[in-house]
């Protein structure tokens, strides 16, 4: 086994995990919302990007931005339909409703794009970089850099800006926030759009690494769930650390044991970790 190569692979896989999980971290942690359509939104964003890329003949950045905008609009529609459940913080119903949304997205995507696997070619994924015995692609670097930048931006947004305080106040008590003159419904729409945009960014970055299928999404929502729970709900820095660690674990487990059992191993780690620390990386 090439140790440094696996470490690099792990960091790239991990930044992908962290990137896919970021939207959910904010959604669950900062706004106390759940979205089990997260994985299917990832799938849909990837397919929209792929479709525009192959049919419209535009460049990768243009297709990526178009996909992100389309997902933002979808986010608005989804949030508006769920508004009453959200305002009453009815998490159980939201779980079921978003799960339903996920199946609707999956079915629609199946009808539109078919069931065959496709590859999103970005150009960057073909450009390989070799340093000694280690190699990676330009797409890998892009994923790593964008993930780190997004995490930094989101952390600053939540902790250092008035908008961040507003999001956190609505998360704590949407009704009380109204007395501060805050339109809690509008804030929820904004946060959900942020979730949709972030999942779309992660999709257009990470999906080119693997073939895309309209049936995918389950794996993404599960790893996201693990990252968010282990990171400590609402802990942005924790999600980044856990995402990276999980990627490195996946790379080494795949190389040393077997890639087939990676998902099961991830859950074993999560269970063990949560028994010791029920709050994940959260200190409180």
């Amino acid at each position, binding site marked *: 086994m090439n140790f440094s190569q696996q470490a690099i692979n792990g960091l790239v896989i991990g930044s992908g995990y962290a990137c896919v999980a970021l939207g959910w971290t904010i959604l669950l942690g900062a706004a106390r919302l759940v979205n089990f359509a997260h994985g299917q939104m990832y799938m849909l964003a990837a397919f929209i990007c792929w479709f525009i890329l192959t049919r419209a003949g535009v460049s990768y950045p243009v297709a990526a931005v178009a996909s992100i905008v389309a997902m933002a609009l979808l986010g608005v529609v989804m949030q508006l339909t769920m508004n009453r459940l959200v305002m009453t913080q009815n998490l159980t119903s939201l779980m079921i409703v978003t799960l339903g949304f996920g199946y609707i997205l999956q079915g629609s995507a199946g009808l539109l794009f078919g069931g065959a696997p496709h590859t999103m070619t970005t150009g960057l994924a073909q450009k390989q970089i070799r340093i000694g015995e280690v190699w990676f692609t330009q797409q890998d670097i892009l994923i790593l850099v964008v993930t780190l930048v997004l995490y930094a931006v989101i952390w600053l947004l939540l902790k250092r800006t008035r908008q961040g*305080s507003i999001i*956190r*106040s609505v998360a704590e008590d949407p*009704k*009380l*926030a109204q*007395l*501060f*003159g805050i339109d809690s419904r509008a804030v929820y729409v904004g946060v959900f759009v942020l979730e949709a945009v972030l999942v779309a960014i992660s999709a257009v970055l990470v999906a080119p690494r693997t073939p895309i299928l309209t049936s995918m999404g389950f794996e993404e929502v599960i790893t996201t769930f693990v990252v968010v729970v282990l990171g400590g709900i609402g802990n942005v820095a924790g999600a980044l650390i856990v995402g990276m660690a999980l990627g490195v674990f996946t790379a080494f487990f795949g190389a040393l044991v077997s890639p087939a059992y990676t998902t099961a191993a991830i859950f074993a780690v999560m269970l063990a970790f949560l028994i010791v620390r029920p709050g994940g990386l959260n200190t409180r």
Partner: protein
Amino acid sequence: MTAVLSARSLGIRYGGSIAVHDAVIDVGAGRMVAVAGANGAGKSTLVNALAGWSRGSPTVSGEVLLNGQNISGLAAHERSRRGLQHVPEGKNVFGELTVDENLNLVRKGDDAAGRYLFSREEVINLFPRLHERRTHKGSALSGGERQMLAMGRALLAGPRVLLLDEPSVGLAPRLIGEVLAVVRLLVDRGLPVLVVDQNVRAVLEVADELYLLERGRIVGHGSASSMRHDDRIMKAYLGGLTE
């Protein structure tokens, strides 16, 4: 003189049970108006409905007027932005935000007419504890400090009228007088205040007028000095003692 805040035959109904019947209340400029009544008389229900901030989803009838404009159809955040500032009983600050973050959430409305504007410095002068505790989270504050923070953010918003629900509940006796004295100071600057408080004796010391609420009905209204000698108030709240 027209009132800054008025309720016109305000009715609040939860399903079949009527919580408040046809309430008529006026709060004029420079007036401190108290609403007294036993537990369950509907005091909080009434004041929350004025702010558009009812618990559950009651049927609210009648009108709420702010400077003569009907605001009955507005959501709570819109009423807040228009200068109807409500400080509710119980949880009224964000525990996970620091004192500074709580205060920074507030934005003054653009329409300055009729607003009582308070700068950050003035609010700190009224409640110096807020400055000392500015980096502490809301959950780390004492009951009195939370009350000060909640009132502080209401003042920073540039209120036209202030609603206070049980400002003295859970406060040490020394603090009750302090908080009510600050309220009186604001009223003397012109800010109209509607206060609901179980501590009728303390409120009567500082208020101008008092409405007596019994089982959802307003059964009495008068100046504080006249209501102090009202039989029902004496019997129910002042233990029959007179000065």
